[in-house]
């Protein structure tokens, strides 16, 4: 409870500072959230360059929304950022007229995870697993992909996901279960082929 209260206090404090046009508070929000928002956008649209541009635009939009006192219904700052990100992605799809269903995998963006404790074979296996998941994510339903990114990659709580998605917690639980099953099926199908 105390952790929640501290978090709530910090959130209210930051939001008040942003409303008072505090640029330091804005930069702090950027530093704290940019990686998560960028990852969310990247896994949703599948292009790193587009994700860079959209992420930058999302933070600027968040600043404008706070100054203009729009999107006040978000309970937390993080939820506000994700809501803006979702809207920005919808706008992006509308403008480009296509949804990305191709693999995120490309030669330029190979995942490189270096863990000294692992031997080279383990490291290779792990990288292969990651590449597989990364490759299969775009083939999931939009709704499933979004919820998997928020829950298992960006570590959002069920309450936060429910608020961002404007769904009930129970609904989110069901969606998560279905999304995981769908992803597992995709991964297993691929394993059988190989």
């Amino acid at each position, binding site marked *: 409870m105390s952790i929640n*209260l501290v978090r*709530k*206090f910090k*959130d*209210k*404090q930051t939001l*008040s*500072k942003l409303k*008072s*046009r*505090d*640029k*330091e508070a*804005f*930069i702090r929000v*950027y*530093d704290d959230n*940019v*990686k998560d928002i*960028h*990852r969310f956008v*990247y*896994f949703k649209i599948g292009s*790193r360059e587009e*994700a*860079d541009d959209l*992420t*930058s635009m999302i*933070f*600027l939009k968040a*600043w*404008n929304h706070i*100054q203009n006192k729009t999107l006040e219904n978000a309970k937390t700052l993080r939820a506000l950022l994700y809501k803006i990100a979702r809207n920005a992605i919808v706008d992006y799809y509308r403008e480009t007229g296509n949804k990305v269903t191709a693999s995120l995998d490309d030669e330029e963006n190979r*995942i490189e*995870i270096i863990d000294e404790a692992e031997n080279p074979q383990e490291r290779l296996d*792990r990288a292969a*697993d*990651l590449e*597989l*998941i*990364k490759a299969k994510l775009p083939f999931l339903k939009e709704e499933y992909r979004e919820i*998997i990114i928020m829950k*298992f*990659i*960006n*570590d959002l709580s069920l309450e936060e996901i429910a608020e961002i998605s404007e769904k009930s917690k129970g609904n989110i639980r069901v969606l998560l279960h279905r999304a*995981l099953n769908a*992803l*597992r099926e995709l*991964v*297993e199908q691929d*394993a059988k082929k190989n």
Partner: protein
Amino acid sequence: MTNSELIAKLNNLKSIDPDQKWLESNRELLLSQVSNSGAETLSTWRVIFINVSSVMKSAAQPVYALGAFVLLLLTGSLFSGQLLASTKPNDSLYIARILSEKVKLNTTFDSTARNRMEMKFASSHAQDITAVLADPAFNNEENKDQVAKLNNSFSEEVNTVKESISRLNAAIVPAAKTGDEVVIADSSKDAQGIQVADGSALNAAVATIAASAQPAISATATLVVPAGMNLKATSAEIAASSTEIAEPTAADKMIDEAIQLFSSKDYEKASDKLKEVSETIK
């Protein structure tokens, strides 16, 4: 592949981060864009104000709810007693007064105190009934049924007063009787089996002992004399208790007079009599 294995693999995707150079350049770009739109560095006072208001806002729900509850309890306990005590038998809040009095009675474990309290409450009810019936705006043909009910209630309350007084009387008498014989609680005197009936008997016993006994017993006798003085004080207490025992009898008479006055519809005098009863018992 199990779900937990799949989740573990998904967790590893957290390692995918944007390019560090892009992060820094974008940070600078956003900062300049925000600065152009009127962003500033806040003054210390402004920051303090924001911190205080954030504390108030974030603590709002639990703290304010608790504060309101405590305030309600305090004001409730402070004012409800006074408010309820002033209600009359024809008021809607009168039932709340009766309930609060019952709670007080049930939470009083000392039987004498409870009897006194019960007597006080019943006497107060009877006085209130007389006050209400003394009001011609209420005591008329329109409220015939209510007046009849109040008449019955008066009889019940007066009976309760009487019963309480008799219980008080019964409680005081045995206590007074134990005061007739005073046992000296000094261990050396117990060994000699000295028991004294009252102050004068004690003095006689002391005189006998002092005249005939050995030096050791004389020493004991000198110790007994001051104890005798205490016994005199006890005698005074016994006398006071006797007065107390006498008072309930007088109170009974006063109650009978009050009943007679009430029957003859002299409500004011009946009320005065009941007040006298309360004061006598005090």
